[in-house]
Each structure stands twice: as structure tokens, then as C-alpha cells.
């Protein structure tokens, strides 16, 4: 075990938050100033104030960086069509689901990244070929002509069709729905409309349990 972690685990037995203590372990103390006699060195504090912090999502927006501008525009259009606002609940665009998926895909395995990139590019190219406009600019009826043939009923969410475009549409539809119903915006609307909360919600979260260093 690294020395720092030894102190961390020894000290977390007290009531103080581990993060505060980790910053104040003896190894991290600056050496005492030459003018301070050793016996007058400050003792370890017994406590420190616990300050309120604000969750990042209420202060800032995700900055998309994974998809190209055209891909993000296509994804945003898909979000508008596949998961619109319904019954007083926010839709995927209100829940910033496209921006969240840009982040999620940026840290996803390569095969999933390729599936998304290929899927978005293909939809955009099909729109241009069929209707003379990018996917982001076509109307819902035109979009339906491209989307509907790709929809497949599946027994389990993890059953993905073999056809790459059908598989992409199943994934992006599922991901947009989950990113929407699991959003802060959706939770806020669900609590005010009193509607049945079908997804998301709260759960018992397990923190990392004594992780190795």
C-alpha cells in the first residue's frame, strides 16, 4: 500500500470526511518554518467545516466535442423526432440528451463509436440524396420515410439487429430515451406533474469498496 493511502485508511475510521483528511495527512504538511520550534508545531485539527457544494449540472452545460457539427445536428434532429416532449415531460432535446450522448460516446468502446458515426453519417447522406436537404433540415414526414423501415421489435434491449443501420437506430433510440428519463430535467417535471415515474429515479448507490491503489 502506498504511504498516503495507509494514512487515508487509518484516518477514515474517524468521523471526518476522508477527502478533508487526505489533504491534511502529515506527509502533506509543509515543513515547519525555521522560526517555529518543533514543539510548537500545530496539532492535527479535530474537525473542519463541511461546506455546501453545488452540483455541476445546474451550473454549466456539456461542451460537445466528439461528434462533428453535422453528426450532432443529425443526432439532435433524431432526438426531436424519436423522443419529443410528451405529457408535460421534457423531450430528449430539453434534457440535453444529444450533448450527454456526445460525452458518453466519447468514452465508449470503439465499435459503439463507429456504429454511431456511421449511422449518423448515413442518415444525413440518405436525407440529402432523397430530399436534397441535410437530415437536420427535413420535415418529420420525410424523416419518417427514412426511420420507419429501420425500426425492429426486439425481445430484450440487448438484442441488436444484424443490419448496421437497424442496430444503430435501436441503440440511439434506447440511449436517447434513457438519457432523457434519467435526466435532472425529467425528474423535476415528474415531481411537479405527479406523473408515474417509469425510468430513472433514485437508487441505493454502492461507493467503491476499499479500492486497490
Amino acid at each position, binding site marked *: *500500500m502506498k504511504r498516503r*493511502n495507509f494514512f487515508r485508511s487509518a484516518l477514515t475510521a474517524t468521523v471526518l470526511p476522508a477527502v478533508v483528511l487526505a489533504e491534511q495527512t502529515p506527509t502533506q504538511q509543509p515543513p515547519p518554518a525555521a522560526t517555529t520550534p518543533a514543539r510548537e508545531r500545530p496539532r492535527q485539527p479535530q474537525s473542519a467545516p463541511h461546506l455546501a457544494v453545488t*452540483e455541476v*449540472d445546474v451550473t454549466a452545460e456539456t461542451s460537445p466535442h466528439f461528434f462533428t457539427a453535422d453528426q450532432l445536428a443529425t443526432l439532435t434532429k433524431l432526438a426531436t*423526432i*424519436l*423522443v*419529443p416532449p*410528451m*405529457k408535460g415531460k421534457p423531450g430528449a432535446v430539453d434534457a440535453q440528451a444529444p450533448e*450527454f450522448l456526445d460525452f*458518453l460516446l466519447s*468514452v*465508449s*468502446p470503439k465499435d*459503439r463509436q463507429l456504429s454511431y458515426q456511421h449511422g449518423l453519417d448515413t442518415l444525413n447522406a440518405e436525407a440529402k440524396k432523397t430530399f436534397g436537404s441535410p437530415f437536420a433540415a427535413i420535415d418529420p414526414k420525410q424523416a419518417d420515410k427514412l*426511420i*420507419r423501415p429501420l*425500426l*425492429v*421489435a*426486439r*425481445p*430484450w*434491449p*440487448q*438484442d441488436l439487429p444484424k443490419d448496421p443501420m437497424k442496430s444503430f437506430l*435501436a441503440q440511439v*433510440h*434506447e*440511449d436517447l*430515451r*434513457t*438519457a432523457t428519463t*434519467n*435526466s*435532472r430535467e425529467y*425528474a423535476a417535471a415528474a415531481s411537479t406533474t405527479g406523473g408515474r415515474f417509469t425510468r*430513472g*429515479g*433514485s*437508487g*441505493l*448507490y*454502492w*461507493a*467503491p*469498496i*476499499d479500492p*486497490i*491503489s
Partner: protein
Amino acid sequence: MAIKQYDVLIVGSGHSGGMAANILTQKGISCLMLNAGPEADYEKDRSVKQVYELPYRGFNKPGRLPHVFQANEFNANQWVDEQENPYTIPPDAPYNWVRVRLLGGRSLFWARQSFRLSDLEFKAAEIDGSGENWPISLADLDPYYSRVEEIFRVAGRKEAWPQFPDGNFVETSYPPDTETIRKVTEICNKRGIGVSKGRSALGKDGLASSVNLLLPDALATGKLDIVENAIVREITTDKNTGLASGVHFVDRHSKREMHVKAKTIVLAAGCLESTRLLLNSKIGNSSGVMGHYLVDQMYGVSVVASVPEARDGKAPSGLMGGGSFIPRFRNLSKDKKSDFIKGYCVTLNSGGSASPNHFPLYGEELQQKLDSYANSCVSGGIFGERIARYENHVRIDPKTVDHWGIPVLHIEARDTDNERKLCKDAADTIEEWFHEAGWEIVCKTDRVNPPGYSIHEVGTCRMGDDPKKSVLNKWCQSHDVKNVFVVDGASFVTCGWQNPTMTILSLSMRASEYLSEQMRTSSF
């Protein structure tokens, strides 16, 4: 400092290790238990969070646990990390190895379905001609099942059906069945198929685990020490006697190498970890069958139907809700009529909803369909028995090691026509029942999740009377190294369709009592 001496070393702290410690210490035998992971603190390590507060909005970190379909972002930290503890598989044969290394192991999180095996499983070779019989029968295990059921407080309904042996159940009353469950029951009964209820371990205070039902009594004797974060690398042997002398283990955090001696080693690390340890130690495999006959149950076959009268929130009271359990009904005798051997059980649930993936729709149209079908569905799923086959096996992968430098397992398990035919029969059969009930089939699939998904993996050190065909004798004792016992699911000869926990616990209890008697009357 003087090092403590122990009679028995127990590797693993789940149901089987907990039972061994419980029995042995109460017979006055001193035990040391080594557990590969830490103890979870249910107060400190858990907290209620909103899903939007999680870093990945509930999606879980992509690629983190590719083989644990049960993982989500709330529970991800309870499973074994696949990067620290890898295993390898062939590209064409996925295998889901789902592990927990916390103190108490998978006994912390199991689904608590509590069934006995029947002689259809113990004597399967006589019935269907496949594989080997177990060297024991239900009669041998019956008294142990009864004691385990008492400790775990199993609730169940007695039926007196040979394929579904009754147990020592706590008194339970069941609410009257809803109309949908009654309808399926009538349809099944007409076909001579018995419909019962699930059997569940109630445990104590909402927990039915080694950590609250088995280990506290063992610790209270003063005869048990538990060491956490001790990852066992290898069993050491005495060159003169050929017997096991102790184990080498490594500290999970510091990687400090340690050795501990004991008179007897009891492996309870879970079927595949115990087998990996034996294979890495190169002992106990004169039969050549160690690692082979890996088997578990098939999950994934599913039929969902919607009850028309229950749509649009109009279900009258008493129509929807509840469930039932249909134990194996195929191939109960030698004069079978199916085009496959073995069988499956069916679980039925009423009152659920359809899922978005069931409909090729989107937007408002999809939402209207989901709203209309909400709480109108009856679903049927199966646990199907696979055949224990020599080809399905684990071996040491010499090219891959875990975080502690211990060689990992290579797992190879594939299904055959028998598994596919069984699953097709199950999906067709459930569909036929729902169709006869007049319900609309929403989804039907005979596709199965990868092996291992059921978390019921057993076999790989099967028991038998013939040391040439088996690794363990009928007491879960190594044929080759008499002071090594394997008390987890590794000793199974067939897997049955039943959840294996009650059988694992009963086998561990029986083996531990045998061991304590051996230690009292003789030395190895």
C-alpha cells in the same frame, strides 16, 4: 510474535465457506478463513442517490463490466472488476463470469430461490442416458437440506411432486391467485402440468447470507479467524506425504506474499475460482476431468402477452398481478416424447408492462402504445438445464495473469442442439398457453443469454465413486489429496433447472461433518 496454528483453512466466505466455518468451529475445530476481497460496510458504502447525480446518468461507465449484464451504475462497485481480474474466452463463445469478492461473496446478493434437486438430477444418467449419475441420491442429502432450510427459513408450498421435492418450509400463506394466474393454471393442469409457487429463503432482517446466518455463530465459538483481502495463489504440498500443507496468498493492497499452514484445506471460493486454484497448484487432477463438465442454466427465453381487458388502465381488480412457478414438466420418465433431453421450469408474472423495444414505433405513437399496454402483461421465462459436457471446460491461460500475477482462466462453453431444441420447446409451449388464454403475444424469443449469465455455474471438479472419472468423492473430498475438500458448486455432476444454493449449502454441511468426524477419529 508466535503464529497461530489452525486445523482447517477455508478459502472463501460465501454460502459454502460460511457453512463449513459454521459446522467445523462448532465441533471445536479451529479455522482460518481467507477472503479475496474486503468487508462491505452497509452503512458507509451505500447511499441513496438520484440517477441524474451519477457520473454517467445511469448508463454505467462504458466498457467497465462488459460481461456482467446484471451491473448498473448503482451497483457497479459490488462486482469483481474485469480489468483487475480478467479471464479469457474464444471469440466465438462468449461467457459471462459474474463474481463478487466482498466478504460473504455472492451470498450478499443472491435471488434467494431455494429448491432441492430431485433424483431426476442425481440419477440423470439412468433416466436420459447422458453423463454420469451423482454418487449420492436425494435420500443422502435430505437431512442436510432440512437443516439448511431451517437456518435460511425457506418459504414454499408443499406439492408432493417427485420432480419438485418438498422441504422443511416455514408456514406461509398465499393470497388468492388473480384471474390471469388462475387461467394459466387451468390451461396447464388440463395438460397434466403442475403449477406451484416459488420457494424463497426469508433469512433474517431482509438478508439471507453467510454474513448474518452462518459466520456470526462461527465467530462466537472463538474458533474462527477471518482475514480479508487475502488472494490465494497456490496450495502448497508436503513432498513426503503428497498432502496439502497450506497456501500461499498475496495481500490485495500491498501484494505482500504470505504463507499459512493448516492440516486441511477447504476450498469454497466459488466453482471456477476453486478450480482455478487447484489447476494453478497442479494437484488433484489424476482423472484429467478437472475443469471439465462446466455447466449452468439457460436464461433468456421469454414470452410476453398483453391481456386485452387490462389495457388502458381498465383492468378490473383481481385480474392482474401475482405470479406462479411451474417446475420441470418435460421428460419426467424414461419413455420421453420430446426431441430433447432434460427440462426447464417456467416462472410466470402478471401485471407487468411492455417495454419500448417490444414495438417498432417511436415518439408519441410509441408512448401511446406503452401507456395503453402498461400493467396489462403476463410474462413467462425459463431456467433451462444444460447438459454437462466434457467439451465445456476451463483451463489455465498461460499468457494472461491478473493484477496479482496469478494466471487466469480460459473459459470455453458452447451450446448444442439439445439446448436449442429445449429453448424452442419452451418458447412455443408458453406461447401456446398464452394464445389459448386469448391474450395478444407482444414478444417471443427462444434466444439465450451467454452461458454463465445465470450465475449458477457448477461442475469442473465433479464428484463420483470412480477416481478415474471424477475429481472428488461423494464427501466433496479430493480423490488424490485426501486433506483437500471442495465444498462449493464445483462438485456438481448435473446442474438441474433449480437454483443451486440450497444444494451447495447442504453439500458443504455434509462434507464438513464428515471432515470433522475424520479429524476426530483419524489423521489423513
